[in-house]
């Protein structure tokens, strides 16, 4: 009856929703767009008002981050490339080991009962409840005493400690989703539990391992508090370096922006690769088996 009126209202709602979405998108994408744009600007263009949309791209920022070209040897570029290398080494090693130990611990917690299992699980989880700032000073003292301060190895250890708890919990969720019958079938038919774990159970949770690795990598990659306190020169990671990227000629904004872009890219790649498993990982595997 009021067909035309309803459709007018519908149309208005649509436009309103669309407008809100546009605003929301600008709010989210705007800073990243600005960051990417600025990372190609020379020092001159950087401070021009109003900001230039079209300019001659200046790759010096990226050259500095990747340690190539003319910028490599300039005094202002010291360490940005090294910190990228540090970040990659610490994140990859920390993630791999955290996922490795988390997978083993998650399997044990999922399949075996042992005295104090509940307490153990809580302890593992509690390692993530603590605000890092609360223990930074003690870590600093401890690392200084042990000779781990300002070493990548020390940061890898921190990364493992910070992520193995999360990895254990997420992987336990995925292993809980694998029926116990898998191992029972294998054992009754003359295989070992080890065979069942490696050949039958692990392939069933490979998506879970990918999701866990993704989460751990992002946490390790973004980690700032520990890395900033426990490093001084050699082992600085990229986030730490960016926060203090002042060179001999003042603050290197182009470099900072380029480093920011480089910092974002691995996270994007990781999320793209594990997007299928993301929902499952976020719900700790409770949504389904496969």
């Amino acid at each position: 009856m009021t067909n035309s009126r309803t459709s007018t209202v519908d149309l208005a709602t649509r436009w309103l929703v669309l407008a809100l979405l546009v605003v929301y998108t600008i709010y989210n994408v705007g800073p990243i767009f600005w960051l990417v744009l600025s990372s190609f600007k020379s020092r001159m263009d950087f401070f021009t008002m109003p900001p230039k949309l079209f300019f001659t791209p200046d790759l010096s920022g990226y050259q500095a981050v990747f340690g190539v070209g003319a910028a490599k040897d300039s005094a202002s570029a010291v360490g940005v490339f090294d910190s990228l290398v540090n970040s990659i080494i610490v994140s990859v090693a920390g993630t791999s080991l955290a996922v490795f130990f988390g997978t083993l611990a998650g399997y044990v917690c999922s399949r075996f009962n042992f005295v104090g299992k509940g307490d153990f699980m809580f302890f593992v989880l509690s390692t993530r409840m603590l605000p890092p700032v609360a223990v930074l000073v003690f870590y600093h003292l401890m690392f200084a005493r042990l000779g781990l301060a300002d070493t990548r190895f020390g940061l890898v250890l921190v990364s493992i400690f910070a992520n193995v708890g999360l990895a254990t919990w997420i992987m336990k969720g995925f292993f809980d989703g694998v029926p116990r019958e898998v191992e029972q079938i294998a054992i009754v038919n003359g295989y070992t539990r080890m065979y069942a774990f490696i050949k039958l159970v692990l392939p069933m949770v490979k998506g879970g391992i990918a999701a866990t690795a993704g989460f751990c990598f992002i946490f390790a990659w973004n980690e700032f508090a520990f890395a900033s306190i426990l490093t001084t020169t050699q082992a600085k990671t990229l986030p730490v370096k960016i926060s203090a990227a002042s060179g001999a000629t003042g603050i290197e904004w182009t470099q900072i922006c380029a480093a920011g872009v480089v910092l974002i890219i691995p996270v994007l790649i990781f999320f793209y690769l594990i997007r299928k498993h993301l929902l499952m990982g976020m719900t700790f595997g409770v949504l389904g088996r496969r």
Partner: protein
Amino acid sequence: MTADPMLQLQGLRKSYGGKTALRGLDLTVNVNEIFALLGPTGAGKSSTLLASAGLVDLDAGRVRLAGRDVTDADPGSRDVAIVFEGFNLLPVLDVKDNIAFALRSPAFRETEDEIKLRVGRTAELLRISHLLDRDVDTLSGGERQRVAIARALVRRPVMFLLDEPLSALDLKLREGLRAELRQIHRQYSSTMLYATHDYHGAISIADRVGIIDGGVMQQAGTIDEIYRLPASVLVGKLIGSPSMAFFQATVEGGQVVVKGAEQRLPIEGFGTVTSSPGGVLLGVWPEDIEVGPAESVGASTGKIYAVDNRGFERAIQVETTGGSFRKVVPLSMPFMQGDACSFRIPEGAGFLFDAESGKRVSQAGEGGR
């Protein structure tokens, strides 16, 4: 059967954390028989099967299999096959590799030629030859259970442990596969321990039935033996369709008086009655109870509480002062919900049970059954 039993479980005890699953379970399965383990959910059926396979660590008890004590033996060395209710097929393998799974293990390895031959033959037997190259994800429930049974069968184990293998299937499929299992059993003379909560499923496949509840074997025997002398109220409640009718009763002056009923039953009809029970439960198979129109002479009164049409017959539920019972009657009996009716328990038809413990206290069995 004079030969050694295939499987002998003695005093099995097992608890998981605080929950007790088995409280001293005894069970004997003879060679070449199908033994159905019948009991409600949580009765300890699965634990019994897992214990037989060696997949749980027992708190106490011994397991003897094929003439040797395997209590501490490796599951892989016991040479049993197991089929579960829901999850059986390994998703990382396709159908034919699932069937061949055991034949490639260190314990039961065969040559690839032999594997191919056996897998093909077993698949043919279970009519799944056309599925061999499929992924297990693409199979229906019935096909999955066929493949699972094929994997158990292909190895020729000394014993099959079947844990509600058909319960997840629909009725038609279940009946079909059950018949096939019996067929396979006849053809290959195998020993099976078949756990189920389904009374019909149990009696249609089994040579002997064991009633299990609360982690204890309540009674084991052929279905005839159990009907003739049910050991306890629990057994009566789990056997029959509908199950046994129970009435509150007392023994007064050599007669069994059912609460609120006019009928008196002479105690001689129950044979020797151990102890002098005050309050007893009178258990009667519903098939023995005579139900008729209201006001029949020599009968007690009841009320039709519910009528459940089954097509060519119907099941009625009768409420009486002493207890209610269900019984199947022909369609020709024109009972309607809410009608008054009468019921009569023939002499010598019932059993007396201790009202407290539920144990049977009368010794005479039903001669006619």
